[in-house]
Every structure is written in structure tokens, then in C-alpha cells.
């Protein structure tokens, strides 16, 4: 399946600002989609689509901060760059506390905005890669037998083979075989790698 390229979603109620942003982002080769209201964006929102959000704070109806809150509620990971004509400090702090990449005041230097957008897109890529890796690890873990799963748990708790053999009432040799299979099924290059993968898998998404 071929994925769509990462898109910059621009939400601003001002026609001229929206159109000029579209032109600017197009000029640096970024795919752009624009929306004149937060609701319009939310209505067509697709969590699977990669990209970032360039969001005006003050809009009639749903404000930019409200949209951020709604996206957080549905665990959307799309990174947000706020742009605002008259933001104040509490507003900026709130946006940042809720995970905004940046909060830029209008008018802005094009390079500043483009840098931030690129950072946001990178963050989105990382997020998505992280999610993908987690999926892979979980899938692999599901392929383990119950016994292998037990061995995995004990190994990642830092227990030595001998101790595990005692715990499971099997021979040390058996433990070694299970352990080798676990490493192989999980695609782990080292014990440390295995531990990292288990931690990653257990992280809440």
C-alpha cells in the first residue's frame, strides 16, 4: 500500500492568510490542504494521514486551542504549530503544555514557519515510526509460545538462566533453548535490545 505524502493542514479563518500560506508552502514543495474553520478540519480528519497542523488560535466557532483539546481527547498525534495575531502568554503556555510544537506570532518570517513545520513533520514521522515499531514488536510477541513468553518475562526481569530454570522447574539447557528462540522470534540482537522492545511494547499508545 502506497502511503500519501505528509501533508501540511492549514486552518485559518482569514481567506488571505490561508491563500498566502498555501502559496508559501507550495513554493517549498510541501503538500498543503487548507480549512477555513476548526470544525471543517475535524470533519475530514483522518488519523492515518501523516502530516502536521498549522493552526490559527482565534477563530469564530471552535478556537484553535479547542481543536487541540479535541484532538488530544481522541489521542490524535498530529503535531500542531500555532500561528496567532495576538496571542498572550497564558494562551501560549497552555498551547505548549498541551503538546504544541510551537506558537508563532503573525506576521512571521517564512523560514521560521517552514523550520517549525519541518520539525513538526519530523516529529510526526518519529511518532508514526514509533507506533509502527510497537505494532511489529507486539505482533512478534504474539507469536511466542506460552512457555517462551514466561521465559521472556523472566529474562527481561534480569534473572539468570539458572534461576529461571529453578523457577520453571526445567533444566538450564531447556531455558537456553527457549531463550534462543525468543531472541530469534523477536529479532533481538542483544539482551538490551530485547528489554527495550518489551518496554516499548508495554508503553500505552
Amino acid at each position: 500500500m502506497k502511503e500519501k505524502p505528509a501533508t501540511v493542514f492549514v486552518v485559518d479563518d482569514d481567506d488571505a492568510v490561508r491563500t498566502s500560506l498555501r502559496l508559501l508552502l507550495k513554493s517549498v514543495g510541501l503538500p498543503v490542504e487548507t480549512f477555513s474553520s476548526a470544525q471543517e478540519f475535524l470533519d475530514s480528519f483522518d488519523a492515518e494521514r501523516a502530516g502536521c497542523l498549522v493552526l490559527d488560535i482565534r477563530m469564530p466557532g471552535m478556537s484553535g486551542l479547542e481543536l487541540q483539546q479535541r484532538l488530544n481527547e481522541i489521542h490524535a498525534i498530529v503535531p500542531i504549530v500555532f500561528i496567532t495575531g495576538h496571542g498572550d502568554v497564558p494562551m501560549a503556555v497552555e498551547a505548549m503544555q498541551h503538546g504544541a510544537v510551537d506558537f508563532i506570532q503573525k506576521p512571521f518570517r517564512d523560514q521560521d514557519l517552514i523550520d517549525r513545520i519541518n520539525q513538526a513533520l519530523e516529529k510526526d514521522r518519529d511518532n508514526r515510526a514509533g507506533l509502527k515499531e510497537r505494532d511489529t514488536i507486539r505482533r512478534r510477541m504474539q507469536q511466542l509460545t506460552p512457555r517462551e513468553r514466561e521465559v521472556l518475562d523472566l529474562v527481561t526481569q534480569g534473572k539468570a538462566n539458572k534461576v529461571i530454570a529453578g523457577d520453571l522447574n526445567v533444566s538450564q539447557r531447556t531455558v537456553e533453548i527457549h531463550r534462543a528462540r525468543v531472541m530469534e522470534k523477536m529479532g533481538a540482537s542483544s539482551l538490551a535490545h530485547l528489554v527495550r522492545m518489551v518496554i516499548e511494547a508495554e508503553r500505552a499508545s
Partner: protein
Amino acid sequence: MDTNADPSAAATPQQDGNELKALLDAAIDGVIVIDHAGRIATFNAAAERLFGYPSSEVIGQRVEMLMPEPYRTGHDAYMTSYQRTGKARIIGIGREVAARRRDGTVFPASLAVGEIPGSVPKRYVGFIHDISARKAATAALRRERDRAQSYLDLAQVMLVALDAAGHITLINRKGCEILGYTEAELVSRDWFEQCVSPTHRDAARAALRAALQGDGRALEYTEDEVITREGHAKLIGWRTTRIHDEQGNASGLLCSGEDITEQRRSEQALKRSEQLLISAQAIAKFGNFEIHLPDRASLWSQQVYDIIGRDPDAGPLAPEEFAGQFLHPDDRDRFLHDWRRGVAESGRFDLEYRIVRPDGSTRVVHTLAQTLPGKDAPSLVVTGTVHDITDRKLAEEELRQGQERLTHVARLSTMGEMATGLAHEINQPLTAIATYAQASTRLMDAPGGADPVELREVLVQITAQALRAGEVIRRLRAFVKNRAARTETLDMNRLIEDLRVLAEPDARVNDVRLTLELAPTVPTVAADPVQIQQVLLNLVRNAIDAMLEAPGAPREVVITTAVVDQDVEVCVIDRAGGIPPEVALHLFNPFYTTKEAGTGLGLAISRSIIRAHRGKLGHRPTPGGGTTFHFTLPQLPGG
């Protein structure tokens, strides 16, 4: 009367009976004995006279026959009740009752009833006498007193009688009226405590004592204050005579007083205004003149010379010469034109003009003139006043400027409250311009360069956005500029449409929708556009603020226009929480504000602006919640 006679006494029962009858018949009061059943047993001679019955006709009859209705019917029940419960209404008490003669007439009587001790079954004795005469005398006396009181009451002066201790023994209606008390509240009270101010009490008491001791001066006409119930002081002119008792000793004073408060006040006012007039004349630079036509002989009072700065020895001038020498060049032609027309039209006319005095100073002068026929036919006399109104003009100008400054300050303050929205409104096009320009630069730098058609479109956009920002700034400047009031012919609908540029950004940043519901056409009005915009913006601002205070309210402000009774009415309607009564009370007071950053000038100035335009500004609840502020402006004739 002891009916329990000592059994050892020598008299026989028969003798006793005779003696008793003689005794009873000699009594002045009617004596009636009844038995327990209410039957008459004894009826003496006085009773016979009183009731007109011989005793033979009543003995053995029921006593009710001596009573008129309704006592008659109630008596039986009363007897029964008394015998059972021992509760007496008459027995042992005595009271005034109505009695009925044989001929049916009823008379007032005093009745005392007692139970005859030891009698079995019970017997009762009643003593009764006619009190008609006493009643009549009392009534006559009361009538007499009432008549005297009514004479006193008719008197249009206050009459007060005091006893030697200063207590009020009598006061008439006028007195009560002046003092604001009822008669009952005054009679037998201490006059000095009740009606004299604490600071005067001692002196007034001393005067009472002196008058009682025969000091003639204390009986002369005096003027003194009384204090009314309301605590007001009234000035009373008093005339006093002594009251003597039977022994000829002075036992009190009778005082007649007249409320002279008003009279004294107007006397004082008159005196004051006379003084004012004198001093006004001295300082007002008020002169008068007389000119005879056609020979132009003139007469000027001293003040005319003083006002124009001419030596009195140089004598008066004819109007044309006066205009030539003293009139401000800009006013000269108008003065002469108006003067000639005023004289020609033979009536009253007035002129306002500037003169330049020989010392070079300019004064503003007002002349009120009147043309009268002279002694013989075509001749005329023009008389008039010359009044230097320079100072008044200056003061008026200063007041006007002060009001304009205040209006301007309020305008700036309203604008300050809208600053966030307006900054946004300017920032948006600036952002678009900067972004377009930066994008264009990038497009041009790209390999192959920019498409000229695309670039051209961007430049058109940049221009539009620059004009958009400029428009906001232009209106803003026009609005905040300090300027003199000026009246223009306005279409309110147009004015409101124009106002949108300023009002909408503020609404938008507060997430409020501004809706215009304008009548298709409205007649034109004569008004200062900036001042009317100021009123409207102020009302819109208030509406937005009201909405911020009422979080659940629909966030919409509606401006409407309509024609109401020949006036153009504009409403600014919100659906916020409405105005609490205690706030409504002060709403238009200067410096009254419920806003943290408000000056409290907005509504006060809005109202004075609308009043200056001969309109009205008010508010009423919006049906369904919220407040509607409305103002009217009178339409132009033929507008």
C-alpha cells in the same frame, strides 16, 4: 339597706313593711326589686314618676317591660346566665342604660343593681335615675367646645395655648398644619421640647416666664423659629396674650402665630436680587443708547463709552460712523446690513458683532434694539442696549471645548477597549502580505523562476491586503482624531454599514457575531457621523462585554434601524443577562462603571451626544432575555 334585719328588734313585720315603703317612696332614685324570675316585686314612687306606670300595673310583671329593644329580649338570657355562672354585666357594677316609659319613649338612665343578700330564691334591687338632663348638658358643652375649636380652626393663624409650665393646652388646626403633627400628638406636651430647636429652648422658656410675670416686652410682636415634625425650621411671627385663672393670676399664654417663612424668604430673595442687579450693572458692561432718525442725533450712556473704549468727551457716534471706526472688519458689512434692516422693519432686533477697541483688543458685543415712532410722523427713535459678552462667549467656548475633549477621551477609551480586535484586523492583512511576498521570493529563486502570471496574481493580492489594512487604519484615525463637532446629512444605514469595519473585529475576537437588520430605506438625519459612530460602538462594546459576563447566552449582537414616529430609531440588541435594577439606576451616571477597565463615561457621553442631536437614548429588556439599547434621531424635514 339592710334587709337582714336583726330578729331581736322590737318592730313588727307590718311596721317594717310600712317604714320600708315610706323610705322607698322618699328616695329620689327609682327603686325596683325583682325576683329570680325577673318579676317586679317593688316599684317605688320615684320609679312610678320615672316610668309613668302606677306600681299596681307593674308589680308581678316582668321587668323587661321597662326596657326598650334590644335589651328587652336579651334580659331573660342574661338573668339565666348570671344565676348559673355568677358572671355579671350590671349586677354590682352599675352602668348607663336605656329605659322605656309607659308611653314608649326611651330615656337614658343610670342603673345600679345589687343582689339582696340571703334572699332565697334570689331577689335583686335596682336603683335607677334619669340622666337625660345631664346628657343634654354634656352634649351642649361639647357642642360649645367644638364650636370654639372650629372658630380656632377657621383662623388662618396658628393658635397655641400654653400653661405656666409650657405645656400645650390647646392648639388649632392651622397650628397642627404648620407643625406637621396631629392635635393628639401635641396637646399636653411640652411646647419647648416638642417644637423649639434645642439651641433656642432656654431663651424661649425665659420669655414665657417673663411674659407670665407681666413683662410687657415679652408680649410684643416677636419672630421665632419652630421646628416641624419633619425637622424643618419655620419662621413664625408671634403675638401673645396672657390667660388668667379665676383668681386673676396669669396661668398661661395664648399665642397666635403666622408662618412668615415664605414671606421672609422672598423678601430676602428680593433683597439679594436687587443687590445682584446693582453689582451686575457695575460689572456687566451693560450700556444703553438712543438714536433719533432721520437726523441721527445719538445719546450714549457712560457704559457704552467704557465698552468700546472711547473717550466720553468725544461724544456719541451715528451708527455708520460707529461701524466705520469700531466694527471688526469681518463683521462691518453684516452689522450695517442687519442694522438698516432692523430699523426699516420697525421692531425689535438684535445684533451680535465684534468691535476692535482703540487699544487693539477685540470684544464681542450684543445689542438688543427697538425702533419706536418719534414725536412727528416720519421720525423714529431707536433705543437699545450694548452688552459686552466677550467673557460669556469665552466661557461658552471653553465649555464647548471641554465637552469635546471629554467626548474625545471617551472615544479613545472605547477604541482602547476595541484595540485587540483592531490589531488583529490589521495584523491579518499584514500577515498575508508578508507571506505572499516571501512565497513570491521563493518562487522566483526556484530553478526555472516564477510563472509571471502567478506572480502577477500574488501582487494583486498583496495590493488588496495592503488596502484592506489601510482602510482599517483610515477609519480608526478618522474615529480617534480630535475634531470639532460637525453636522452632516446622514443615511443611518450607510453609517452602520461603514461602522462594521471598526465594530466587527472586536466582535470576532470575542467570538460574537455582529448582525445588521436594517430597514430597506431610512430617511436622512442631520448628525455628526463620528459622534453617532461613537455612540454605536459604545453600545456594541457594552453588548459584547455583557455577553462575556453571561457565558451561556447566544453570542450575537444585532443592530437594527427603523422609522418610529417620524424619527429614525437604531437598536443595539444583545441576548446576554440583562441589566440588574440597581445597575440600571446609575447606568447613565458619569463615572459609574461595572467594568474593571471602564471609565464610566461611555453611556453618559452617548446620552449627551444623542440629546445634543435632539434624540433620545434609552434601554429596555430584549424579549426573551438581554438588553436592547435604542436611540432616535429626528429625520430631516423632507429627508
